[in-house]
């Protein structure tokens, strides 16, 4: 896990790229907790979401979980290979397992996300 990532309490990570675009994925902790992923539904390019809104869903054998937008903005790219290769989420959650790229409406929203240390404290305090 690289140090330049920010995290939402709902377990999505964000990496800032060039031109106000941010890559979003799911933390390894969340992927591990879900286990046995079977299906994923992703948004279309061009859709807009506010921070905290559900932008997709992921199904494991027992559970459907929402994916929440960590920042507000427009979906500019979707990892369309992911639903057909869900094992990538577990194998490389911070690389090939990226989910969407968002053009941020308000980059200041990044400031309220957790840094790596704070996120690790959060998941470390959660029961396993």
């Amino acid at each position, binding site marked *: 896990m690289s140090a330049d990532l920010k995290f939402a309490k*709902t377990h999505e990570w964000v990496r800032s790229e060039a031109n106000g675009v941010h890559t979003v994925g799911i933390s390894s902790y969340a992927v591990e*907790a*879900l*286990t*046995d992923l*079977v*299906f994923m*539904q992703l948004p279309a390019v061009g859709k807009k979401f506010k921070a*905290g809104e559900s932008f997709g*869903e992921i*199904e*494991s*054998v*027992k*559970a*459907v*979980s*929402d994916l*929440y937008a960590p920042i507000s903005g427009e979906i500019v790219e979707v990892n369309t290979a992911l639903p057909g290769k869900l094992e990538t989420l577990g194998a490389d959650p911070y690389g090939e397992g990226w989910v969407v790229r968002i053009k941020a409406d308000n980059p200041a929203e990044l400031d309220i996300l957790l840094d790596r240390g704070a996120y690790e404290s959060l998941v470390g*305090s*959660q*029961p*396993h």
Partner: protein
Amino acid sequence: MGRAVSTLTIWWDTAADGPTNMAADECLAAEAERRDSLLMRFYEWSTTTISLGGFQKIEDARQVGEIRGIPLVRRPSGGGAIVHGSDLTYAAAVPKSHPWGASPQVFYDALHGAMVEALAAHGIDARPYPAAGAIPPPADGAAGSDARSAPDESQFFCFDRRAAGDLVMAGARDGTCSKVMGSAQRRLAGAVLQHGSLLLHSNTGVAGAARHLAVADLVADEQPPERVGLSRVWGQRIATALGGTAREEETSFLSVHHQDISALTARFRDERWTFRR
């Protein structure tokens, strides 16, 4: 560690249609987050109803001739289709900050484990389906007669699938292993909703592939437990596992939360939701 809530609040609801029941379950999750407490409701169905898993394809439902003409509702949770009407149906919701909300398997095992104890109190031997060598198989090697060792998402019906923690029983006559209880979750931002079904009796409203062996079939000459009595013991066992107490509400959840449930029901009646896949 997450903070522990120690009271289980239980509601008993009268029969309602599929969209109302799904809306009530979502409302229960919102209420669990608001109250910061473990909540549960037991409910029935006004008519035989098929609940589809959130990601199941409507085309797969159309391929099953035995359920043609039966009302369909799509659940917010995952898993396979269930024919409701003769089952014990429940919904439970816990704040995500609670230890039981941390991961899918923890809540699943807590409620199903309590049901194993409740059934045992009625003289019925049900066991959690083995998870890769972690859970011992049912007595007499019953699980060995079941060829499936991993979840099989290609099966349309929930009771034809097997996942770790599902409850299975060996038939009293031939020892064949059958799944009698399964559950599924919707993990929301602040709460986890889990609902599921214990197949108490085979549903006489369907036949063929849609009809599954139930507890009443598997206990052979024994009387199967009565729904309310079993649910009550189950609730007590859950409260014990929680380290707290169970409290039964006198009014129904449907009546107390009528307005919120009505607002949520529209989504589950909408064909764009039911036929979304």
